């Protein structure tokens, strides 16, 4: 049997984890982590991260069951197609890829600010840093250079080790003890924090395309769970280290030009009252001020390790962004290429570079989309500071959507194809998929209530994807089918067929 055959080169467990965790840990995660910390009281952010992690774990279990059944890089589309139908699959898969790409806007924006302020080369404006970065990643991808395997493992695990180690160190030298670590405050705020918490895990499920590179599907299931564990520990410690270092620092020196600017921004945003006594800021008020920073991690590491800290965090941000972008755009471009080959997208997207064997048109189109969205973020930010956060909620919404759809797919497939082999099966019957579907649906609702613009964007994308899938694709496919029929078959006819 095929499953008994070993491949010459297989992906190992550590690479499955480094891929998932590396995809999730992008530069914007640091800002999102701080955003989460400002929503809850004191140092209780870990509770929201844990709740989000537990539900992502359950969603991961659903992915694991589906990925075991259909171990393919085109997974998400096939899971939904088998459970529902092709049009529904096209709709959700396209929305997922499109909106996931839009998170790139927020990522580029934050990274550009890190490079602008971290390198000290202020002659180059942030938007230009963003453009240079996107072009560099495009060139890397067109040349088919993929940060993968052992190199990716070293990068990812070094990053996580540094974040965990430095966070523990920061907590140990903090002048303030942990503040109300078990009391997050208003339950409504906790729900909001959990929504942002989900964003912190965005991308962990991108290990499913590795299903074709492992011979034992249980590695994918285990990898999904380990990824969530690594991310939880890292984010929880990083968040505590961040706030325990920076909130007391702002309380101690509110007149510092950088901190004063943050307090001004918090007042302008309405997070702090206008007439606040700056010399008597509480821990949570100082945290609110720090939460207005787009680059909290740069300030954190500068405070912790001086200029060396800035160098390290700039390098780490670059590594985080490059690995996420590299893997993300390569996978997305191949999906786009496959759709073009399938006749669901214009043929131009299936053009291949003969020199590098990469789908260069799909890559250029994706990079163009990333660039457009990134520039849109810069423009929005110019008129309304912190509007990049909308993209974080957009990412969180779309993740919630896909987790809900995956959970429904598990339920439907268990009823429709009960006998199909499942190397991994989510335990406790329908309970976990049902909980995932309900929880993430409610979270989607909470996000759109808080940020109606997210609903508008998703609705627009859904309508465009729906129209395309229902009206345009069938026409394109019919044309492709007709062209194929017109071509004479090359395969020789069997004598028995000829007689018939």
């Amino acid at each position, binding site marked *: 049997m*095929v499953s008994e055959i070993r491949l*010459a080169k297989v992906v190992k467990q550590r690479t499955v984890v480094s891929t998932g965790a590396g995809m999730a840990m992008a530069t914007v995660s640091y800002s999102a982590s701080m955003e989460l910390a400002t929503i809850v009281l004191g140092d209780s952010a870990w509770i929201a991260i844990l709740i989000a992690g537990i539900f992502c774990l359950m969603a991961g279990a659903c992915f694991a069951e589906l990925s075991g059944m259909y171990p393919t890089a085109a997974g998400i589309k096939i899971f939904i197609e088998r459970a529902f139908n092709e049009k529904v699959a096209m709709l959700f898969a396209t929305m997922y890829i499109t909106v996931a790409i839009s998170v790139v806007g927020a990522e580029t924006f934050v990274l550009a600010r890190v490079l602008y302020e971290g390198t000290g080369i202020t002659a180059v404006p942030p938007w230009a840093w963003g453009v240079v970065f996107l072009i560099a990643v495009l060139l890397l991808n067109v040349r088919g250079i993929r940060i993968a395997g052992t190199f990716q493992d070293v990068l990812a695990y070094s990053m996580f080790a540094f974040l965990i180690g430095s966070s523990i160190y920061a907590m140990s030298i903090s002048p303030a003890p942990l503040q109300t670590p078990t009391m997050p405050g208003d339950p409504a705020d906790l729900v909001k924090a959990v929504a942002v918490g989900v964003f912190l895990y965005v991308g962990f499920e991108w290990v499913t*395309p590795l299903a*074709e*590179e492992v011979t034992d599907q249980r590695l994918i299931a285990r990898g999904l769970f380990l990824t969530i564990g690594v991310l939880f520990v890292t984010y929880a410690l990083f968040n505590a280290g961040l706030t325990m270092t920076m909130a007391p620092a702002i309380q101690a020196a509110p007149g510092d030009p950088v901190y004063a600017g943050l307090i001004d921004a918090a007042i302008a945003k309405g997070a702090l009252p206008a007439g606040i006594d700056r010399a008597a800021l509480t821990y949570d008020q100082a945290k609110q001020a720090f939460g207005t920073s787009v680059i909290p991690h740069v300030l954190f590491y500068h405070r912790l390790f001086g200029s060396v800290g800035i160098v390290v965090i700039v390098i780490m941000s670059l590594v985080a962004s490059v690995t996420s972008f590299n893997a993300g755009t390569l996978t997305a471009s191949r999906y786009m290429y496959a759709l073009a080959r*399938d006749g669901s997208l214009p043929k131009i997207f299936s053009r291949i570079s003969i020199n590098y*064997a990469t789908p260069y048109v799909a890559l250029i189109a994706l990079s163009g989309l990333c660039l457009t969205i990134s520039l849109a973020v810069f423009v929005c930010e110019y008129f309304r500071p912190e509007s990049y956060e909308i993209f974080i909620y957009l990412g969180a919404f779309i993740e919630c959507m896909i987790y809900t759809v995956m959970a429904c797919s598990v339920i439907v497939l268990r009823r429709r194809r009960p006998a199909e082999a499942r190397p991994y099966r989510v335990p406790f019957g329908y309970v976990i998929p049902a909980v995932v579907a309900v929880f993430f649906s409610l979270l989607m609702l909470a996000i759109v209530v808080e940020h109606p613009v997210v609903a508008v964007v998703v609705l627009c994308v859904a309508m465009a994807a729906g129209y395309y899938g229902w009206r345009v694709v069938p026409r394109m496919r019919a044309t492709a089918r007709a062209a194929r029929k017109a071509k004479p078959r090359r*395969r020789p006819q069997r004598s028995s067929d000829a007689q018939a």
Partner: protein
Amino acid sequence: MATQSEISEALADFQVQCNENERLRRMQRDWTKVLHIVAEDNDSRHTMTVVEGETTSVEEGLIGTPDIIVTTDSETLCDMFWGDLNPAQKYLRGELKLKASQEDVMRLDAINLIVWPDE
């Protein structure tokens, strides 16, 4: 259901098509792989060896440790290697299963596209 010899015939033609295609040889100049081709509805098994872009052999049976495993039904295998079927469609529907790195999955379809370009 296609027989082992029908698949062998299709693979032999595919080998010629690949080796005669200059663009493909250029693209695959650094590609050295062992492919196992498995029909899931009968006992047909083949091994194809590609060395620096040249398909050096197509043999019956599974030989050596593969870099890529292609699994589907025998009819699909036949149609695919004769160029009468677009493998991407089968792949996106989960009817064509691959075990390989993402780069190699991409390359496999690219080979098909270059040998039998869409009109």
